[in-house]
């Protein structure tokens, strides 16, 4: 019976636990909250290409689950994507489209285009009618020039010269609207992007920690991880806690020695006939 065998499936979602989870909901048990990336993500087009920026806080309800997560995901050597929304959805959808783009590059023999990534993302998200909760800022440079797009969870997209998404988008957009102009240089662009992310970090509770920046130009991509660290940890005690050996009360202990793995050597002495 195929149903009881746990053969690795061919991919896509599996819905077999849905009935049980529905039953639990009816019994009054609340479903868990998923890890979200509260987030401030931004992108802008400058004279030579595209600059993407993101904060690095991942939240689980009101608790900070990860103080330094990566929200700028790789799609292709010339295309990167920032993700906001449910963390598992943004990671899974960007990984999936990145693999599809790689296969497409092998089939066509050409560099990927940003519009290809955009179409793959929007068709996937529209198909799941917004239940895959991923809001993305997609940017890259291809043969047709620099492109910046935003993708919403329901599958709609916008093509813009500068864009912000996430809970900190209003704070970041305020900075962009006052400082953005066409024809920015690389340094000016990075400066405006990090100011916008810092605005999100300090004013929005769902965003925090550090600033990540990614600069994409024709033929070159620079991923500046932790470009700015405006929130260093200052309250560490210099002595720290030190517990002496034997401080904790132990009921029983078992020590197992790990055997080193024996390697078989090729071309050793043959057995005598």
């Amino acid at each position: 019976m195929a149903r009881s065998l746990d053969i690795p499936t061919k991919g896509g979602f599996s819905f077999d636990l849905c009935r049980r989870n529905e039953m639990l909901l009816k019994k009054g048990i609340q479903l868990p909250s998923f890890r979200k990336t509260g987030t401030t993500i931004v992108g802008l087009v400058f004279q030579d290409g595209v600059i993407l920026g993101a904060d690095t806080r991942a939240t689980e309800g009101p608790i900070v689950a990860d103080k330094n997560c990566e929200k700028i995901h790789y799609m292709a050597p010339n295309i990167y994507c920032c993700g906001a929304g449910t963390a598992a959805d943004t990671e899974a959808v960007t990984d999936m489209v990145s693999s599809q783009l790689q296969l497409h590059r092998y089939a066509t023999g050409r560099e990927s285009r940003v519009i290809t990534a955009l179409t793959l993302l929007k068709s996937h998200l529209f198909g799941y009618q917004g239940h895959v909760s991923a809001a993305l800022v997609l940017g890259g440079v291809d043969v047709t020039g620099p492109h910046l797009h935003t993708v919403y969870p329901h599958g709609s997209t916008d093509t813009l010269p500068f864009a912000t998404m996430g809970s900190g988008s209003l704070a970041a957009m305020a900075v962009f609207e006052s400082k953005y102009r066409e024809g920015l240089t690389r340094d000016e662009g990075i400066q405006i992007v990090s100011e916008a992310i810092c605005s999100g970090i300090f004013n929005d509770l769902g965003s925090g920690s550090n600033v990540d920046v990614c600069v994409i130009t024709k033929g070159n991509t620079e991923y500046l991880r932790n470009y700015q660290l405006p929130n260093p940890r200052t309250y560490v005690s210099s002595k720290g806690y030190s517990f002496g050996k034997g401080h904790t009360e132990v009921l029983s202990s078992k020590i197992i020695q790990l055997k080193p793995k024996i390697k078989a050597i090729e071309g050793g002495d043959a057995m005598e006939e």
Partner: protein
Amino acid sequence: MSIFEYNGSALVAMVGKNCFAIASDRRLGVQLQTIATDFQRVYKIHDKLYVGLSGLATDAQTLYERLVFRHKLYQLREERDMKPETFASLVSALLYEKRFGPYFCQPVIAGLGDDDVPFICTMDCLGAKELAKDFVVSGTASESLYGACESMYKPNMEPDELFETISQALLASVDRDCLSGWGGYVLLVTPTEVQEKILKGRMD
């Protein structure tokens, strides 16, 4: 009452110098009634890779069996053990497959990779990976664990000191959580040996 608070659990993993430690509490309850005080939450995948599963106990056991099955198939095909990073991707994929009807489990994965570099990671119930260089926590006591680990953790601890630190952080945190406790189980793995210790804790 949330589904994660049905059984109660506390899990923490910490990185030391060329070693790692993974610890869990030992209580299994059905809401407020304790039904077991020796429940195992940390499972072995291979000599240098362990996974702890918090959340609903039945989903934790089912998920463990599926993971062991997939790892055994991998061993047969590749003729070697899985690297911790690969295993983390496997767990993430298995959890995300059930995106719209998830397993109510939050795994904590800890292993020694190539050149005995320690690797730890945790995920939410949908498989969103969180790689950390210092510590990861999971379970109903996670909020207390975050606080205790933030203050007690130091980088590059030797195995003995790491054992003491992780035990104190675990015991301090479960004392502030009704649903976890009844002692602790700590597993410390170095390149040459594995130490399993059972801690005495409060029995309430």
